[in-house]
C-alpha cells in the first residue's frame, strides 16, 4: 500500500480538553503508515456559534483553513472533530454549488478558496482509506475485558447529503474498526442520539437529561465502556458524568475513550503514551487484562479444545431428531 498523506486539522479542542485524542490519533496513524501534515497557522473553524451570525461569515472562518490546505497540494484534509468537519463540508458544498456564495465568502478572505479540498473525518480515513484488513494486521494486543458501545454523536453522519459517510441512522464504521481490533462491540440504538454537548456550558439541566439517556442505553446494552470520535461528546459524557449522576440520581461509572485510544491499546502503546490518565472516569481496571495477542490466541485454543466434545454431541442429537419426524 502506498504511503498516504493528509492535511491534519486537529481543531481547537484537541489542543486543550481533548489532548489525548490528538496524541492517540497521531500514534495510531504512525502505526498505520499514514503521514499527517499540519496546515500552518490554522484558525478556528467557527463551529456552531459562527452559524448564528451569518452563513457567509461562518463559511469564511472555515474556508480560511481550506484555502491554506489547498495551497499545500495534499488534496484531502482530515479532522477528528465532527464539528470542524461539518463546518468545512458545509462551507465547501456551499462554495462549490453556488458561485455567488463563493464570491461573497472569498470577499471576506485574504486568500480565496477555490473548492479543491476534500474533507474527511479521521474515522472515515481510517475506515475507508486504511481499511479493516490493515487495521487488524497491526494488532499486537488483545483487550478481552472491553465491551464497547460505539457512540457517534449527532453530526458525524448527518445530514447524509453533507456527511456522505456511513449510515445516518445506524452507522457502523466505528463498530467495525473496533471489531477489527478483536474487541467486543455492543449494538444499541442511541449511536447518533444527540448528547447535548453543544450546550454543556449554558444549559446544563437540559444536557444532563440527554447525556443520561445515552449513558443508560449503552449500559443497558451491556457495554462497560463507550468509544467516541468527537471531543465534545467525550468531554460531555466523561467530564460531566458526575454532574449527571448528581442531577439524575444515577451512579454511572463508565469510561469514555476515544476510539483511537482503543486502537492504540491494541497496537501495544502504553496507557501513558495514550494519555489514558487524562480520562476523568478511569479505564484502568478494564485495560489491566490486556495481553499480547499470541498469548491470548493460545489461551483461546486451549479453551476451545476443552469445549469441543459438546457441539459434536449436539450435532448427533439433531440428526436423530430429523429421522424421527
Amino acid at each position, binding site marked *: 500500500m502506498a504511503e498516504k498523506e493528509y492535511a491534519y486539522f486537529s481543531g481547537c479542542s484537541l489542543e486543550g480538553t481533548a489532548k489525548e485524542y490528538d496524541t492517540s490519533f497521531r500514534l495510531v496513524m504512525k502505526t498505520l503508515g499514514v503521514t499527517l501534515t499540519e496546515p500552518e497557522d490554522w484558525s478556528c473553524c467557527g463551529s456552531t456559534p459562527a452559524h448564528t451570525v451569518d452563513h457567509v461569515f461562518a463559511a469564511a472562518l472555515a474556508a480560511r483553513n481550506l484555502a491554506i490546505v489547498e495551497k499545500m497540494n495534499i488534496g484531502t484534509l482530515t479532522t477528528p472533530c465532527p464539528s470542524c468537519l461539518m463546518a468545512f463540508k458545509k462551507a465547501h458544498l456551499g462554495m462549490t454549488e453556488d458561485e455567488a456564495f463563493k464570491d461573497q465568502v472569498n470577499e471576506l478572505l485574504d486568500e480565496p478558496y477555490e473548492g479543491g479540498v476534500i474533507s474527511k473525518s479521521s474515522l472515515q480515513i481510517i475506515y475507508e482509506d486504511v481499511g479493516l484488513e490493515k487495521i487488524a494486521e497491526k494488532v499486537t494486543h488483545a483487550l478481552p475485558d472491553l465491551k464497547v458501545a460505539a457512540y457517534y454523536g449527532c453530526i458525524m453522519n448527518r445530514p447524509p447529503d453533507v456527511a456522505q459517510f456511513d449510515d445516518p*441512522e445506524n452507522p457502523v464504521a466505528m463498530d467495525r474498526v473496533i471489531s477489527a481490533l478483536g474487541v467486543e462491540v455492543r449494538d444499541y*440504538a442511541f449511536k447518533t442520539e444527540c448528547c447535548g454537548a453543544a450546550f454543556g456550558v449554558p444549559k446544563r439541566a437540559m444536557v444532563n437529561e440527554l447525556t443520561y439517556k445515552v449513558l443508560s442505553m449503552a449500559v443497558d446494552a451491556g457495554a462497560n465502556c463507550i468509544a467516541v470520535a468527537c471531543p465534545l461528546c467525550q468531554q460531555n459524557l466523561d467530564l460531566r458524568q458526575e454532574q449527571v449522576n448528581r442531577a439524575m440520581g444515577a451512579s454511572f461509572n463508565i469510561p469514555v475513550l476515544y476510539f483511537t485510544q482503543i486502537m492504540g491499546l491494541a497496537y501495544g502503546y502504553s496507557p501513558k503514551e495514550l494519555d489514558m490518565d487524562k480520562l476523568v472516569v478511569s479505564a484502568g481496571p478494564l485495560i489491566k487484562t490486556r495481553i499480547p495477542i499470541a498469548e491470548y490466541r493460545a489461551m483461546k485454543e486451549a479453551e476451545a479444545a476443552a469445549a469441543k466434545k459438546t457441539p459434536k454431541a449436539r450435532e448427533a442429537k439433531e440428526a436423530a431428531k430429523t429421522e424421527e419426524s
Partner: protein
Amino acid sequence: MRVGVFICHCGNNIAGTVDVARVAAEMRKLPGVVYATNYMYTCSEPGQEEIKQAIKKENLDRIVVAACSPRMHENTFRKTIEKAGLNRYFLEMANIREHISWIGEDKELNTAKAIDAVKMAVAKVMKNKPLYSSSFKVNKRVMVIGGGVAGMQAALDCADGGLDVVLVEKSPSIGGMMARLDKTFPTIDCSICILGPKMVDVAQHEKIKLHAYSEIDEIKGYVGNYQVKVRKKATYVDWTKCTGCGACMEKCPTRNAYDNFNFGVAPTRAINIPFPQAIPKKAKIDPAFCRQFTKGKCGVCAKICPTGAINYEMQDEIVTEDVGAIIVATGYGLFDLDKFPEYGAGRYPDVITGIQYERILNASGPTSGHILRPSDQTEPKTIVFVSCAGSRDKSLGVPYCSNFCCMYIAKQAILTKDHVPDSQSYVFYMDIRSPGKGYDEFTRRAQEDYGVKYIRGRVSRIYPKGKKMVVRGADTLLGTQVEVEADLVVLATAVVSAPGAAGMAEKLHISYDTFGFYVESHPKLRPVETNTSGVFLAGACQGPKDIPASVGQGSAAASKVQALFSKDMLESDPAIAQVNTNACVGCLKCVRTCPFQAIKEEELRNGKKVAKVIETVCAGCGVCTSTCPCGAIQLQHFTDNQLLAEVNAICQG
C-alpha cells in the same frame, strides 16, 4: 380545397388566455381557408352540429379544430366529419389548450403561439389524403396476466361471457395478496372465505386455462392477434401426478426455506404447498434451499411421494398462446423493513410489516391465528401501528398515498382487540384517509368502540428497551414529543409497483409512471384501457387500490374485452406505411429496421425486387420512412410532405 377552421373556447379554459377571435380572423387570411369561427364548447352536441352544418353550407372538404389535445378528442371530431360525409382523415387538430392556454399566462404570446399552431394544422390538413381501413379477423381468446382478485374477477367475467381465457400467474397459486389477508374491511368478513370459492371457480371453469408458476417471456402481434410465449417454470414436481397430499412437505428435512406466502413470518419446507386453499394445490421445490440441489443428496420427498411425482431433472417449459386481447392484473409490491434504518431496518424482530401482521392474525397462518410476537412468542398487550411508513415520503421516493393502509390499520387494530381483549392499540397517523362507503364509520368505530388511540404525528425512532420497543413520535395536536412502550410495532409499509412491473410493461408496449404503475388511457374516462389497443388494466398494477376497486376494475376490463370481441372483424388503422414501387430501389434497409418485421421483399411482375408492407402487421411507427434513402416508403398521414408542410408553416410563415 376548402378548409374550415373551428377555434374552441373551452369555456374560459382557452378563451381566458388566448384571443380566440383574433386567431379565427388570422386564419381567414390564409389561402385555402374559406371559413373560420370560434365556438364555446366545440365537442358539445351543438358544437359538433355546427361543424356538420358548416361542412354542408360552406362546402368544406378539410377541417381543422383548434381545441384540446388530439389525444382527448381526435376521435370525436373524426366521427363528426365522417357523419357529414368527409373522410375521417381530412381532420387535423391544433392543441391550443394543454400546449398553450394552460401553460402560458401572457395572452399576446399565447395568441401568437395559437395562430402558429393552427397554421401548422391548416398546412398539414391540405396535404391529407383520404385513408380507408381494412378489416381483419379477431382471435376471441383473452389472456389475463396475474391471478390476484382483480385478475380472477376479469377471468371469470370473460369466461362466463363465453370467452376462452388463459390465466397466467407468476407464483405457485392464484389468489394474490387477498389470499394472505385475514379479514377484510369494512365488513370484517374472512378474506379466504370469500376468495376461496372464486379460486375454485377459476380452477373448475371449463373456459379457463391456468398456467400457474409461469411468467411471460415474449409478446408479439397486435390487437386481435397476439402470440404470447409463456414460460412454465420448473417446479420439480410433475403436477399431472401430484395430488397435493402434502406427505412430502411433512417429511422434508429442510425446515428453513423462506416462506414467500407468509412473508417470512415463519420458515417453511424446501418442498411445499403454499397454503391449504392453494389453487392449484400442488407441491413445488425451492431449489435454493432443497438439499438435493444445494448438497446433491437427500431425495426424501421422491421416496415418500405416493404418486412418484418428484422430478429433480425438470426444466422450464415454453408454451405459446394465441390470444386477441390481454388483461394485465399483476398487482403491487410492498416496501421492505430495510427501508427504515431509524426503525431498526428489520433488526428488531418485534417490528413487523402490515402484511406480516395479517399472516399472524390469520387462523391458517404460522401462529394459527394467535397473536404472538416474533421475538418470544408471547402475547403482545401494547401494539403500535405506524401509518404512512414510507408512503407520502419524498425522501424515500414514494410521494403518493398508498390508499388502503389507513383502512387496514383500523381493521387490524379492531381485530387485535378481538383477539386480545386486554390489549391497547395506538396508531400514529398523519391523516386518516377513509373516503369509501362505510369507511369513515369504520375508522371511527376503531376509536369509539374499540378504544384505539390515534395519535396525530409521525414516528421518528423505534428502539428496544428491555423487552419493550420504545416508539418515539410526535403528537402534533398536543404539540409535543410522545413515547409509547410497545410489545409489538406494525409498520404500514408503502405500496409500490409489483416486482418486474417495468419489464412487463416493456413487453406489452404500455406506459408506466415513475413508480412502475401502469398508465391508463385517460385518468377519468378510460381508466382500464391502455394506449395499446387490446391491452387492458385491472387492479393495483395501475396504482394502489383496495379490493372493491380492484374487483370493479376486473369486471370493467372484462366488459371492455367483451365489447372488443363483439365484432368478428376489427378495423385496422390505415395510418400505416406504403411503398411507392416506382421509387423503391430494393435496398431493403427498411426491412432490416422495421421493429415489427412488417416489411418483406417482393418481386414485381417485371422482375424488379421491392419492399412490401404487410398491412396487418405494420404498427405505424414510421421508422422505415425515415430510414428509406429514396423516400419510397411513406407512413400514411405522417408523410415527409405532411410533416415538412408543418415545418414550413412555422419556419417560413
